[in-house]
């Protein structure tokens, strides 16, 4: 997948997200998820967060859309960086193992 194809896929995700967000605000924005509803049924409220995050998902369509786009881009960059790093570390480890094995084989012969 080249840079253009990645860009196209991300644009496609953002377009689907922007349409899905309309449905979210029409049908579900005022409804808690399963855990939140269970907490509500039991009369338990959320505690004070120990960490204040810099962003939130937003209360209206424009802010939620902006938060979503920011999140999509952060997730893409962070995932690319992390998996690339893991693949590089794994590759260099494998080549080191092969070098040691080769040296051993040369020594034995």
């Amino acid at each position, binding site marked *: 997948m080249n840079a253009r194809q990645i860009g196209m896929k991300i644009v496609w995700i953002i377009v689907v997200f922007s349409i899905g967000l309309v449905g979210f605000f029409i*049908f579900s924005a005022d409804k808690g998820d399963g*855990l939140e509803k269970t907490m509500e049924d039991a009369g338990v409220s959320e505690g004070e967060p120990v960490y204040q995050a810099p962003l939130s998902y937003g209360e209206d369509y424009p802010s939620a859309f902006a938060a979503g786009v920011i999140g999509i881009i952060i997730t893409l960059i962070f995932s690319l960086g992390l998996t690339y790093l893991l*693949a590089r570390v794994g590759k260099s480890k494998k080549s080191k193992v092969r070098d040691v094995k080769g040296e051993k084989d040369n020594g034995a012969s």
Partner: protein
Amino acid sequence: MHIPDGLMAPELLVFGWVIAILGLGFAVRAVKSKLPEKQIVVMAVVSAGIFAAQMLNFPVMGGTSGHLVGAALASIIFGPAAAIVMISTILIIQCFVFGDGGLTALGLNILNMALIGSIVGYYSYSIIAGKHEGNNKFVFDTKGRAAIFAGTWLATFISALLCALELSISNLISPSYGIAWQISIPMMAIYHVLIAIGEGIITLGIIEYISRVSPDMLKVEKIELWKRRGEVEC
């Protein structure tokens, strides 16, 4: 299903962190040794898509809503080890950037959604589909589709039951934490029976769609947590 701060007993939070670090470490080890470079970009794009999908709650009966967790989806496509890394990455971003899920509860959130969701999703799918030999074959017959739906349903439902159990144990440790089991277990079970159906339908739809527009994406190597019998490391 993102657990906030202050809900669970401290003992449970510590337990969650320990299991999450161990599980994530195990998954990272597997990914590091088996991840093909050509798969990196595809995994990142799917992770971004799962992040977006997690923001889109769908309505469920009883005045509640649910959203895709994506662990079963990621594990069926990429294998459980890769899925654990992907979903944990999303949970970490949601916690640190958007304050979704408490920082102290991040370990439990990784345990419930990333670890249990991925492991239950992948292995129940594999068992039902009967795909023990072919590592990267998707068969879109009735059994294959049923396996995707059932694996996803089980992953979501068991993750939710585990969360309910954690709420109950927290409440038993101290009544100021968690929710009594008489409420938490039946309520979480009832809501997530329905939410898991939504997750199953969405996951099946996404995999069907990918199989039509980009079938190569489904032929990637599945990164498992451990070697299967007879598998030789190259």
